[in-house]
């Protein structure tokens, strides 16, 4: 076993520090200097973090740089500025700006932790609050029963590889980490964002996905790491895009808007996007729901056969949402010939979606995974299916919990975007798109994201996550992530009714 692990843990990309100074604009704490300050400069002499500064020759001291402040816990130090100020002009407290960032699912801690991992590639300690959200249910209530670490974690001895084809025949594809990138179309995001994801996927020998918006030519050099998605609108789907890929993904539904098809609101359908999608510029584009050629499992099989005959070597992935009968859908997909059954639960997603669909239609992924896993085991076909989960998996621990619930691996969307400096403000759906230059096709804004910078950050995030999985597995006494699958006995649930009312 250890030998195998050693083999599959070989050639992992190295982390590189990515300069991201501009993202350090937010801190948990704020330092206020009152009018009574006499600019004596004592604080500037004392603070070792550089919060207080006086420019050489200036009478007045600069306003405090509270991004560097370590907060009220500093009071134990002899240099605590608040206690030392002779005029009592300084105070330290929680930052209002920090409270404005994030939400119960992606807390501000989680966003900052993801940024830190993207910048340095260093893993987050498994007990850090940034690993878990505050939504009060699902993954946020599931915890691993973790024994203390004995000895040191050696990432070279731990295998996080998964097989994407577990059937007896067809191309074998293994990815060294149990995640790949979810579909985000050209139009919903910029080519720079797509390119950053593709470059990171290449470095990790995993995949990203085109989404339903065509296959921009800039991605062709990365074609072995890009999944071609066939979705209901068939926007930009051509024979050659199906032929060049190693994995074809059929998108029946997406968790962000189960049962509603895709939306690209008119503002974002710029002439370039429209050309790619063979549509009229500045019209709203809706992918219908469902595939109007698929009204039964038999139709579904015909559909898969059609794509397989265009590209016989490719693996077939079927992306479905999580209705009550999700296990029947999964079994049907397997018998129709799918290699990968991809469950996309609500609560996730990156694209424009009606608010009513996000919380209220179809079940969260946490419920769907064990349901499908147990059913596939009962049917005796669990070992032939690669079960992939997505939709609200935000951290490495969420992925591990999904695997413990019964999935083989996961698909990541939002975390990639957060690595690219997304703050989850949710305004990417209309107008010029993302004000931060990620989910936009605006010719000015898309320059804000540099593809190489983004690739490094996503790659760092994957690396940090891998190290987190390594520590987790080591503490559980495992050497291979496949041992974790279905081990619900390792989880503990903080039970009780979910608290509070919905936000």
């Amino acid at each position, binding site marked *: 076993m250890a030998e195998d692990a050693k083999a599959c843990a070989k050639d992992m990309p190295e982390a590189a520090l990515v300069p991201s100074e501009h993202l350090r604009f937010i801190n948990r704490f704020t330092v206020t200097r009152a009018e009574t300050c006499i600019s004596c400069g004592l604080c500037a002499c004392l603070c070792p973090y550089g919060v207080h500064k006086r420019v050489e020759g200036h009478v007045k001291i600069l306003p405090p740089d509270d991004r560097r402040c370590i907060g009220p816990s500093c009071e134990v130090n002899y240099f605590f500025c608040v206690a030392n100020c002779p005029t009592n002009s300084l105070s330290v407290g929680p930052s209002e700006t920090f409270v404005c960032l994030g939400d119960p699912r992606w807390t501000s801690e989680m966003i900052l932790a993801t940024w830190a991992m993207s910048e340095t590639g260093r893993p987050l300690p498994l007990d850090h609050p940034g690993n878990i959200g505050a939504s009060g249910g699902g993954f946020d209530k599931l915890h691993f029963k973790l024994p203390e670490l004995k000895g040191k974690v050696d990432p070279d001895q731990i295998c996080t590889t998964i097989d994407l084809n577990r059937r007896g025949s067809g191309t074998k594809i293994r990815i060294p980490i149990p995640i790949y990138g979810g579909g985000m179309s050209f139009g919903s995001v910029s080519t720079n964002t797509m390119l950053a994801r593709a470059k990171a996927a290449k470095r990790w020998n995993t995949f990203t996905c085109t989404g339903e918006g065509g296959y921009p030519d800039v991605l062709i050099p990365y074609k072995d790491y890009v999944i071609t998605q066939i979705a209901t609108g068939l926007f930009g789907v051509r024979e050659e895009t199906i032929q060049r890929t190693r994995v074809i993904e059929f998108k029946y539904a997406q968790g962000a808007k189960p049962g509603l098809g895709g939306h690209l609101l008119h503002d974002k359908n710029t002439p370039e996007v429209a050309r790619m999608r063979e549509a009229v510029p500045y019209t709203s584009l809706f992918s219908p*729901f469902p595939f109007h050629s698929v009204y039964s499992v038999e139709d579904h099989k015909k559909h898969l056969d059609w794509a397989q005959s265009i590209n016989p070597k490719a693996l077939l992935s079927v992306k479905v949402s999580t209705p009550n009968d999700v296990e029947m859908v999964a079994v049907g997909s397997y018998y129709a010939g799918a290699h990968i059954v991809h469950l996309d639960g609500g609560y996730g997603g990156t694209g424009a979606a009606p608010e009513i669909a996000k919380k209220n239609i179809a079940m969260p992924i946490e419920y769907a995974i064990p349901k499908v896993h147990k059913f596939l085991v009962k049917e005796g076909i669990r070992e032939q299916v690669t079960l992939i989960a997505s939709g609200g998996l935000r951290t490495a621990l969420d992925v591990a919990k999904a695997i413990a619930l019964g999935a083989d691996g996961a698909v990541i969307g939002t975390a990639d975007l957060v690595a690219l400096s997304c703050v989850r403000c949710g305004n990417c759906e209309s107008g010029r798109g993302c004000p931060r230059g990620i989910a936009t096709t605006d010719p000015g804004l898309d320059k804000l994201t540099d593809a190489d910078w983004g690739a490094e950050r996503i790659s760092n995030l994957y690396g940090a996550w891998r190290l987190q999985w390594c520590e987790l597995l080591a503490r559980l006494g495992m050497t291979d992530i496949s041992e974790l699958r279905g081990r619900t006995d390792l989880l503990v649930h903080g039970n009780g009714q979910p608290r509070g009312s919905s936000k």
Partner: protein
Amino acid sequence: MALPSMGWEVSAMKYERYHIPLKSVPGRVGPVPKFVIIRADNCINCGKCEKSCIYGVHKRSEADLRKMADPDNNLCKNCFRCIQDCPQRALTMMVGPDYKALGRGLWTSLRIFTIWSESETGKIPVFGAGYRGLFAGPGYDGMWTDMSEIVRPTRDGIHGREYISTSVDLGSRPAWLEFDKAGALVTDMPPIVELQVPFVIDTTRLRSATDAMKTGMARAAKHVDSLLFAAPDSLSREAASELNAHFVPVYAEGTDLRSIVLPRGARMAALTLGSNWKEDAKRFKSMYPQTVLAFRVNAGKDVEKRVLDLVKAKVDVAHVLFDEEGMELDSVEPRYAKDSLRAIHKALVSKSVRDQITIIAGGGIAAAEHVPKTLICGADVVALEKAAVLALECRDCMTCSMGSCPVNMGDAPAEWIENRVTNLMGAWRDQLLEVLGAMGLREVRRLRGELGRAIFFEDVERESFSDIEGGAGDG
């Protein structure tokens, strides 16, 4: 230029799809900003924030171009670009204090804010970047509606390619029709009111309802083909003649039925369940056999038995009342409407009398998703109460009785009220269509009591997590 006559135009062929026309109806007072940007004194007026912000929050002062004007917080969308780019770190953001102070309990600040924007634009709220709220919650927050996929048919009603009906009937429906030998109908047809939307407006329990509000809401009800429930004599004489068909007078408990005169053209009336309600029902039926009779019942312990009694007394409609939070009123251990309505529906089904009575559920309907969820739990129609007032920019501050309304509700003109409430109902109907489309249903009548097409928190939690330590199975 006159168009040439088509010749074949027959009135019966003039088919019009039901549709609620919507238009932008701006608020009368300024909006409440969700986020507030504060510019500190060390700003050097470099103008970098103006370039950064794509929403136009930051502008130079028009009076003095050397200075930056105060940020226009209503435009801020929380993207942090200006804060990130400010070379002086002079900008900070905070959650708007007025926004934070909005709402309580079920009526969260976000829900109130959403109702305001739905009433202003008539549009479905759409955002990117996924769900950002809590995992689940009490009441309706602990349930999900089902969807159709691959193995079930679906409907594309959202973009108008297929028609999904949202019309419902109020009244008792005979299980079958009988005809005599000559083919004439012999079944005694009970009166029925058909609505185009499964919601009505009820002003009777509002903290304050001005005449303009009642007239405006009644017009909105007419506009979308729904009903307004209000105290008798709520409408002025001139409004009444035009609106009575969409007006339901609600008589308080203890009203002497011999003294009442139904408004001309009223199709329905509501009485309040009191001690001698059985006599009242009998008397009303003999006085107005062609008017739909509703009884208002407070939800509480054994409400299902009281509804069954109403069926026996041949009452057409039971209007079940919950409190603002969507919980039972008369009970020591109040249930959520979700559970109470399921109990009523199941009781009626088990006695095979479900179609003999229509259930209206009112109270705790705070968001568009509550409409389909209430229907799934067993109601036929949903009553909008507080939501209709929030459509008028109400801040839910509860100071109405003190006469110090921050939005001067008393001055709101009826026409503005009509348009705002119409927008709200239009946006909610469109969202209902989204849910019906996802579920593969062609008409909202099919949604009633479709418990199998819903996912309940306690069920899935048990099903999926019972084998996990501390999971639902352990208690």
